[in-house]
């Protein structure tokens, strides 16, 4: 090996070490790999299994590349040289065949999991789900609890082990609603109602954000998702109900104005149909 190659190899290895240390240090912060809900757990497992299956092909490909480049280097007198060997049916069958079989296996997984983890599909659970309507605004998230008759901005709380039925729309450019530790992500679009069904396994505080770029204040468009016990949730709802702020068509107009890095805010919901009005606004001539 030449001096420069050794040096480069050294740099590569130390780079790998730095990365490994940082990842180890922060491993509990890798949200997607630390799921706190059933959906995110299944998605994590699928991610890990698919990666392992693909490594069956990927590892040999990378290893062979370097092994053969080294073995058949021009100054290796011992290596065989057959410049006219250009085809082998057996070899072709292997590398058309094996990846194809792997893809077939993955395809079966894709078909099953796409249906099982379809964000529009309600979860099976004996507990009564809680309905939360989500509106992406410029640049904040509005959460409406139609049954509890409250609304919040950039903060959403719900009881643990209870299915969460999110209905999502937007009164702003396209956004994407994502709580990494509970599971992913669906677009929020004006005039559309998308759905996301999640569940939290234990109390905890999770980060949520918008994953689809939506303009100036995009970076500040994040929220806290808090899972609590049933009792804590009820107590929280009644505390919000004491809020002096009412959310109706008029105060919604105030909310609609673009603003960045918004603080959490809490409202008493005085207009039940607000969410539907927000969607229907785009369906009727203005």
């Amino acid at each position, binding site marked *: 090996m030449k001096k420069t190659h050794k040096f480069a190899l050294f740099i590569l290895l130390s*780079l790998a070490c730095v*990365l490994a240390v*940082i990842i180890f240090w922060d491993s509990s*912060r890798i949200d*997607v790999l630390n799921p706190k809900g059933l959906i995110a757990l299944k998605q*994590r497992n*699928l*991610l890990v299994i*698919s*990666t392992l299956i693909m490594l069956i092909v*990927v590892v040999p*490909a*990378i290893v062979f*590349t370097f092994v*053969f*480049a080294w073995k*058949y*280097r*021009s100054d290796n007198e011992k*290596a065989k*040289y057959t410049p*006219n060997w*250009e*085809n*082998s049916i057996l*070899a072709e069958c292997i*590398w*058309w065949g094996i*990846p*194809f079989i792997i893809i077939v296996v*993955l*395809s079966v997984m*894709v*078909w099953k*999991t796409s*249906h099982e*983890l*379809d*964000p*529009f599909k309600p979860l099976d659970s004996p507990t009564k789900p809680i309905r939360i309507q989500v509106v992406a605004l410029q640049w904040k998230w509005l959460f409406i609890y139609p049954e509890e008759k409250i609304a919040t901005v950039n903060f959403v709380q719900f009881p643990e082990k209870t299915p969460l039925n999110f209905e999502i729309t937007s009164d702003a*450019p*396209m956004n994407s609603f*994502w709580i990494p530790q509970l*599971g*992913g*992500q*669906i*677009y929020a679009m*004006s005039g*559309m109602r998308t759905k996301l069904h999640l569940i939290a396994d234990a109390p905890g505080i999770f*980060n949520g*954000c918008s*994953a689809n*770029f939506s*303009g*100036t204040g995009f970076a*500040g468009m994040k929220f806290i998702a808090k899972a609590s016990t049933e009792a804590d949730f009820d107590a929280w709802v009644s505390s919000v109900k004491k809020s002096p702020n009412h959310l109706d068509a008029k105060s919604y107009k105030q909310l609609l104005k673009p603003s960045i890095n918004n603080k959490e805010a809490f409202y008493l919901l005085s207009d039940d149909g607000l969410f539907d009005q927000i969607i229907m*606004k785009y*369906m009727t001539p*203005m």
Partner: protein
Amino acid sequence: MFGKLGLDSFTRNPIEFGAGISMVMAALAAISFLFYFKRWKWLGKEWLTSLDPKKIGVMYVVVTAIMLFKGLIDAVMMRAQQAVSVGDSYGYLASDHFQQIFSAHGATMIFFVGMGVVFGMMNLIIPLQIGARDVAFPFLNSLGFWLFAVGALLLNISLIIGEFSGAGWLGYPPLTSMEYNPGVGVDYWIWTLQVAGVGSLISGINFLVTILKMRCPGMTLMKMPIFVWSCLCCLILIIFAFPILTATLAMLSLDRFLGMHFFSASFGGNPMMFVNLIWAWGHPEVYILIFPAFGIFSEIVATFSRKYLFGYVSMVWALAAITALSFIVWLHHFFTMGSGASVNAFFGIMTMLIAVPTGVKMFNWIFTMVRGKVYLATPMLWFLGFASNFTIGGMTGVLMSVPAVDFQVHNSLFLIAHFHSVIIGGVLFGFFAGFTYWFPKFFGFKLNEKLGRYAFWYWMIGFLAAFMPLYVLGLMGATRRLDHYDHASGWQPLYVLAAVGVLLIMIGVAFQVLQIIISIRDRKKNLDTTGDPWDGRTLEWSTTSPPPFYNFAITPEVNERDPFWIKKQSGREQAKKEYKDIHMPKNTPMGLFIAGCALIFSFSMIWQIFWLAGVGALGALVLLIIHLSDDDTDYYVTVSEIEQIENRI
């Protein structure tokens, strides 16, 4: 009179202004250089009006290099912002400015670096490899290039006059509607892409016909060099995909200018339609970019292993399979838009299928080395870097084609890491490999090997440092396009590492610049007098370096693949044939002038100076009619002239 254009349109942001001013200064320096050495005539006659694909190819590469540099500066600025903009600190860039930078970075890299590489390489290599003297439509070729150059110019003008779009390189409506983005930025983006896109389509038609109609006698399709096959598949994609881009952007500009409702959320418009259409172009586009790189690596691996490419037929079928499949996978860019489970699963599976032919190509390259004599020259190093980076990028790509997994990584930095793995590791590394490999063919001397190796290692290590952390950041919940984040997120160390990686890449770039300068200085030492510096296999190495403007004095005839290699092996000299008159196109400035009109037109459309737009459009039309009515477009190089030129060599 001047539409939206006023004195206050000129940028006052110090950073942008600085960038703009330095661009202007560089241009002024070049102009005064030309005046000083009285080279205007030379420039006009030899380059600007040239229809010689070799010269047009060099001009493509020059524009590409400038735009690559600009795109890299954008990247450095973004990563610098993200390394420091944590918690209470908001970095040195305002959100709007940061957003313009990443939008410009994406548009620059895809349309002016990626496409520039594609057409630059096609111009330089295709005619030589198929034993042709010229392309099928030399004028279209020149026009296509100049439209590409005008697009690049327009993007740079936005640095000084007005602003660029801050809505991302694919600007989804309604964010790009008049309601949310009334400024000229989005219009700059639309017209930049529109002009460059039309240029790409025109050039695409030219090269498709060139490959199909202008191959030398005996070169059947299955005897073409694999690079030409890659380009053929790439061109088919261009011809089918680019009209979609043009139409989609046209509809978006109608929405903006005339208040129509193709993509608005209300009045029956549908933004989801835009997302579908733009990716119906956008997905084939990534294969458009990677195919020529596949071809370049195929040539390089065979040449530097002194062996036939393994499984040629299989390679061609793999290309064909990818070409077909690439049109039925676009939805994987938005599994999260809420299509049904079955639709998502279908597109996921189709996407995975592409991994099969791609993997086949990888194994065929690997087995080309087996039982060969592998010379680890710089182009081969780039290949080894490509093999590992592209495989990793490919694997994460398949991972994201599983819809249920994609929900957790979509639009996160994981995605960014994925497509940079395949675009830097594939397209750019392929370009650098090809540049080093074919440089002696066009300039007559080899590039400095040592500096090339340094450049490679800095690029390689810089790439890993810049993008491996992004995979982790994505899984940590970091989305793309953030100009600020919280301390508590714990992202900062990885962002800093990524910024260091970008700096390492910039050192690699510095070595590349140095490599070119030193190589020009030492050119006498590295002269390529044989025309075949690498012991090549295909026709381009059978002519001199640099080739005469007519490429081949006698049209070659081939009976097999790798004809030049076989000729060298068998040692038989082709019987000397008589020279014949050579039919060549005359230079014309019309491509340049029409593109100039396109510049006037698109600039005035951006600023809504409609009378001037009319002038531009009319000018283009009149010039086109004048050119088409001109019958004096070609001439013959006589036998005595050919003899003179050949004897001089």
